[in-house]
């Protein structure tokens, strides 16, 4: 039977087998035959796609590898080694020789993109005069037009690219161009538009905190934090405003971090008020903030509320007492260290005792001798300078 099949197959009767007989095959077999062809075709297409993709990518790499050294050389000669920087002139008086950048090669779109990318790379590493001069190159060569073209693209990832370029180059664009994008359905675009707005908008950069209804993702917080803390001449508002009025928990939590960073003493009353919030995660954040800012006046409140708090807040209170280092609550810490059942509570109590060592020396020595072996081990752990956590 097999022989029959193969003789049919190879004796030039392939046609009859697959076309003539095909019509008499059961449906299943017909479908199978069709799918064999589809599979073969797809495999071939896949091969071609791999080929094409790899070739394109390769070509792009080769091109970039060829152009980047040239760009680097121009940047080095005209910006990094610019005589003007040495003479400490104000930026406006420094002349940049842009001859090299104006060669016909730099009219090509892909070369201009390579140039933008490279300028951004440099600006990631350098601020100050060099950073300013890089920005001037971007403006003088009208690379912003390239960025604007991407901004007009219907594809959201192009818009993101444009926004990234503007933000990186500190290129001010009108609010009307960014604001609509901050409501985009695509999260990435929305986030990038927010960053651009905060960085580039001249009026009320922090307006977003008022209107943000969706949670501020951790990733966005990282980016926002960087933008807020690294942008010069941004007017830092009192973040207490949002701690008090915002209904968005992530915004409040983020503002607490900013309050710590800028050590905004004026915001303390708002933070203290937050201790009454029902959300215990937020409360823990507020306690954390108070601890990091070492607000001694609130320490008593924290210790008083300790007993009816959930674990995460209790841990934060213990940490805060350690950070404040007032030495007033050694007994409280000692008590917790000896009697808490939870391991993490004991460990944090011990750590805070050690941080209050200037007042707690005797207590620590006493505990070292009298407490249970387990607790002694905790004390040794937190006192060992080799162990960080």
């Amino acid at each position: 039977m097999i022989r029959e099949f193969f003789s049919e197959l190879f004796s030039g009767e392939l046609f009859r087998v697959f076309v003539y007989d095909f019509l008499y095959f059961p449906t299943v077999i017909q479908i199978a035959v069709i799918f064999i062809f589809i599979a073969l075709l797809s495999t071939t297409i896949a091969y071609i796609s791999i080929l094409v993709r790899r070739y394109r990518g390769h070509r792009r790499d080769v091109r970039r590898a060829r152009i980047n050294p040239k760009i680097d050389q121009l940047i080095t000669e005209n910006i990094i080694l610019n005589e003007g920087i040495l003479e400490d002139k104000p930026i406006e008086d420094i002349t940049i020789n842009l001859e090299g950048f104006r060669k016909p090669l730099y009219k090509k779109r892909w070369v201009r993109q390579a140039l933008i990318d490279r300028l951004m790379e440099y600006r990631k590493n350098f601020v100050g005069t060099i950073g300013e001069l890089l920005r001037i190159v971007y403006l003088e060569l009208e690379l912003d037009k390239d960025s604007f073209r991407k901004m007009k693209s219907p594809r959201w990832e192009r818009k993101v690219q444009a926004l990234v370029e503007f933000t990186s180059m500190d290129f001010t664009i009108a609010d009307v161009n960014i604001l609509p994008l901050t409501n985009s359905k695509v999260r990435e675009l929305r986030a990038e538009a927010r960053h651009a707005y905060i960085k580039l908008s001249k009026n009320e950069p922090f307006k977003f905190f008022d209107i943000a209804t969706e949670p501020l993702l951790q990733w966005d917080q990282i980016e926002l934090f960087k933008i807020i803390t690294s942008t010069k001449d941004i007017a830092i508002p009192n973040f207490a405003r949002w701690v008090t009025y915002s209904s968005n928990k992530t915004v409040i939590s983020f503002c607490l971090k900013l309050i710590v960073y800028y050590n905004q003493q004026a915001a303390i009353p708002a933070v203290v008020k937050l201790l009454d919030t029902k959300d215990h995660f937020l409360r823990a954040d507020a306690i954390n903030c108070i601890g990091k800012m070492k607000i001694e006046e609130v320490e008593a409140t924290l210790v008083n509320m300790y007993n009816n708090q959930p674990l995460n807040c209790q841990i934060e209170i213990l940490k805060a007492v350690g950070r404040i280092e007032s030495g007033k609550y050694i007994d409280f810490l000692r008590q917790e260290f000896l009697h808490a059942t939870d391991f993490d509570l004991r460990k944090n109590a011990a750590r805070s005792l050690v941080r209050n060592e200037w007042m707690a020396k005797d207590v620590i020595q006493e505990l070292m001798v009298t407490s249970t072996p387990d607790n002694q081990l905790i004390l040794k752990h937190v006192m060992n300078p080799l162990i960080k956590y």
Partner: protein
Amino acid sequence: MGKILLVEDDEIMQKVIEKILIREGLVVDVARNGKEALVKLEENNFQYDMMITDIMMPYANGFEIISRVKSEELGKKIPVIIISSVGNEDSVMEGFKLGADDYLKKPIMAGELIIRVKRLLARANNVL
């Protein structure tokens, strides 16, 4: 006068810092990662007047290189500047604990770098 070992894996930082320092009349030896840095140090018998290093690099990170330099009789007096994008306090503290003399956070200001390099070099010379 003044031979500097620059340890940096980012290509742009590498080139730019090298150029800037050369213009200041310094001699710069570049290592692209931790491994190369250790080889260079050994080959040149720690004869450097200063080391500028990044922290996050393949093979051996900056901390390891600093610890290696500072543990060596010849290397102990080499001033070390860290240039890193890592901004958390722990990392900065670690660097100083290991004996680094200065810490610059990326993005850096070229002018600031030059001033710090010169100051450290001058101080090292005075001690000698």
